[in-house]
C-alpha cells in the first residue's frame, strides 16, 4: 500500500507528460514512450555507454588529481598555522569562482581535449576536499596530538598514524562532495565546449548534439536520466567503498 502511495505521483506525472505532448502535437518534444525506445536503442548500439565512459574517465582523472593535491595541502594547512594563515587568502579568493567560469581560460591555455576536461574537474573537486581536510584536522581531539607528542613520536609519523586516521571521516566527506561537484562540472564543461567551441565528446556534448541536430529530442531525456543515475551510483558507490575500506569512519 505504501509503495503504491510512493509510486503514485511519479507515475501520474509520467502519464500526464505523455498526454500533454501527444496533445501538443509537437514532433520534436520528447515523450516517455519515445524516450524508453530511444534508451533501448542507445544502449544497444553502445553510444550511451561510450559517452558515459568518456565523461567518467575524465571525472576519475580529475578527481584523483584533486585528491592528491588537496589532501596533503589540507593536512599542512590544518596542522601548521603559518601555512594556513598565509595560504587562506588565496583559497578564499578562488573558492567562490565556479569551475565552469574558468572554462574560457582553460580552453585558451590547454585547448578542448581530455587534459582540459581533467583540469576543470580537478579544480571543481579541489576546494571541497581541501576545506574538509583542514576542518577535519582542526577538529582532532587535542589530547590525541599531545599524547603522541609525549610519547616522542616524530611529526611525520604522527601525521601518518594519528592525524590522518583521525581526520579521515571529514576528508571522506569532502571527497564525496567533491566527486558530486566534479560530475556536474564535467557535464557543464562538455556542454559548453560542445555548444561553443566544437567537439568535446562525453555525455554533455551528446546532449547538446541531440538538441542541435536531431528531429526527436528523446535522446536528451535519456542522457539526463543517465546523468542522474550515474550521480546516484557514484555517491552510493563511493560511500560503500569507503565504508568498506575505513569501517571506523562514517562519511
Amino acid at each position, binding site marked *: 500500500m505504501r509503495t503504491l502511495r510512493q*509510486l503514485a*505521483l511519479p507515475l501520474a506525472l509520467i502519464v500526464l507528460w505523455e498526454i500533454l505532448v501527444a496533445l501538443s502535437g509537437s514532433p520534436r518534444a520528447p515523450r516517455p514512450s519515445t524516450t524508453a525506445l530511444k534508451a533501448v536503442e542507445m544502449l544497444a548500439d553502445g553510444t550511451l555507454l561510450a559517452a558515459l565512459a568518456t565523461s567518467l574517465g575524465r571525472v576519475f582523472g580529475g578527481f584523483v588529481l584533486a585528491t592528491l593535491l588537496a589532501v596533503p595541502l589540507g593536512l599542512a594547512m590544518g596542522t601548521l598555522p603559518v601555512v594556513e594563515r598565509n595560504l587562506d587568502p588565496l583559497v578564499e579568493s578562488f573558492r567562490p*569562482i565556479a569551475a*565552469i567560469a574558468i572554462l574560457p581560460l582553460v580552453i*585558451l591555455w590547454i585547448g578542448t581535449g581530455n587534459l582540459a576536461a581533467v583540469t576543470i574537474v580537478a579544480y571543481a573537486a579541489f576546494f571541497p576536499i581541501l576545506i574538509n581536510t583542514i576542518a577535519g584536522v582542526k577538529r582532532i581531539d587535542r589530547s590525541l596530538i599531545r599524547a603522541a607528542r609525549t610519547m616522542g613520536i616524530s611529526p611525520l609519523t604522527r601525521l601518518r598514524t594519528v592525524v590522518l586516521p583521525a581526520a579521515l571521516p571529514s576528508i571522506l566527506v569532502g571527497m564525496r562532495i567533491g566527486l558530486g561537484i566534479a560530475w556536474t562540472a564535467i557535464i557543464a564543461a562538455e556542454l559548453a565546449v560542445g555548444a561553443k567551441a566544437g567537439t568535446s565528446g562525453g555525455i554533455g556534448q551528446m546532449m547538446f548534439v541531440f538538441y542541435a541536430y536531431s528531429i526527436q529530442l528523446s535522446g536528451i531525456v535519456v542522457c*539526463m536520466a543517465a*546523468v542522474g543515475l550515474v550521480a546516484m551510483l557514484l*555517491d552510493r558507490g563511493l560511500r560503500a567503498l569507503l565504508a568498506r575500506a575505513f569501517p571506523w569512519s562514517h562519511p
Partner: protein
Amino acid sequence: MARVGGLLVYLRTMAIFALAWYGLSLLVGSRLLLPSPLLVLDAVRQSALDGELLRNAGISLLRLVLAVAVAALTAIPLGIAMGLSRAWRDAFDLLVEMLRPVAGIAWIPLALFIFGIGSRLPIFIMFYSAFFPLVIGTAAGVRNVDARLLAASATMGVTGVTRIRHVVLPAALPAIMVSLRLAVAASWTAVVAAELVGAPSGLGYAIEYYRSMLATPTVMAFIAMIGVLGFLTDAGLRALEARLMPWAKDIRP
C-alpha cells in the same frame, strides 16, 4: 589588533600572488595568453566605466534573486509538509530522489528547446539547482525539531498554521538557513553555465563573448566579478543568519 594583523597577512599573500603572476606574464609575453595583473585591472576599470561589468552583474544577480525566491517559496513549504507529514513524505520522496541527482546543468539542452535563448532559461536552471538543497534541508530540519516542542505545543492547543509559524519554523530555521546558503551557492554555480550556453546577457554570456573576441583581460575581469559576487552573497547570507538567530551559532557549519 588581530584584525589588522590578518589584513596585513592577506595583503602580503595577495601581493606575492600578484607579483608571481606579473613575473609569469612577462615570461609568457602574450597578452592573449596571460595578461599581466595591471592589464586586468585596466580591463576592470574600463568595463566598470562603460557600465558593462555592473550591467551584466546586475542581470545575473537579478536572475539569482528571482530564481532563489521562487525556489524558496515552493521548496520551503513542501519541505515543511514533507517533514511534518508522512503522507506528504510518501507522496513526494521518490519524485525528489529521482529528480535531485539530475544536475540543473543537465537540463540546459531541454530547457533550450522549451524556453529558447533568453532570461527564462537561466532562471529555470538556477531555480532547479536551488530547489533540491532547500527541500531536503528543510524537510530534514523539520524532522529534527525536538518532538517535545511539538508535544508541548499540541498540549497547549497550538495546531495547524499557528504551530508551524511559532514552533516548527523557528526551530527549523537554522537548518533552513544552511540549506539556503547551499542553494544560493548551487544556483550561482549554475548561472555561469546557463548564461554561457543559453542567454544573451549576464556574466556567463559576457565571459564567453569576450573569449570569442580574444579579450583575455576582460574575461579575467568578469571571472573575478563572479568570484566577488559569489563571496558577497554568501557573506550577506551569513550576516543575515547571525542577525536572525544569534542563538544558533553552534549549529552553523
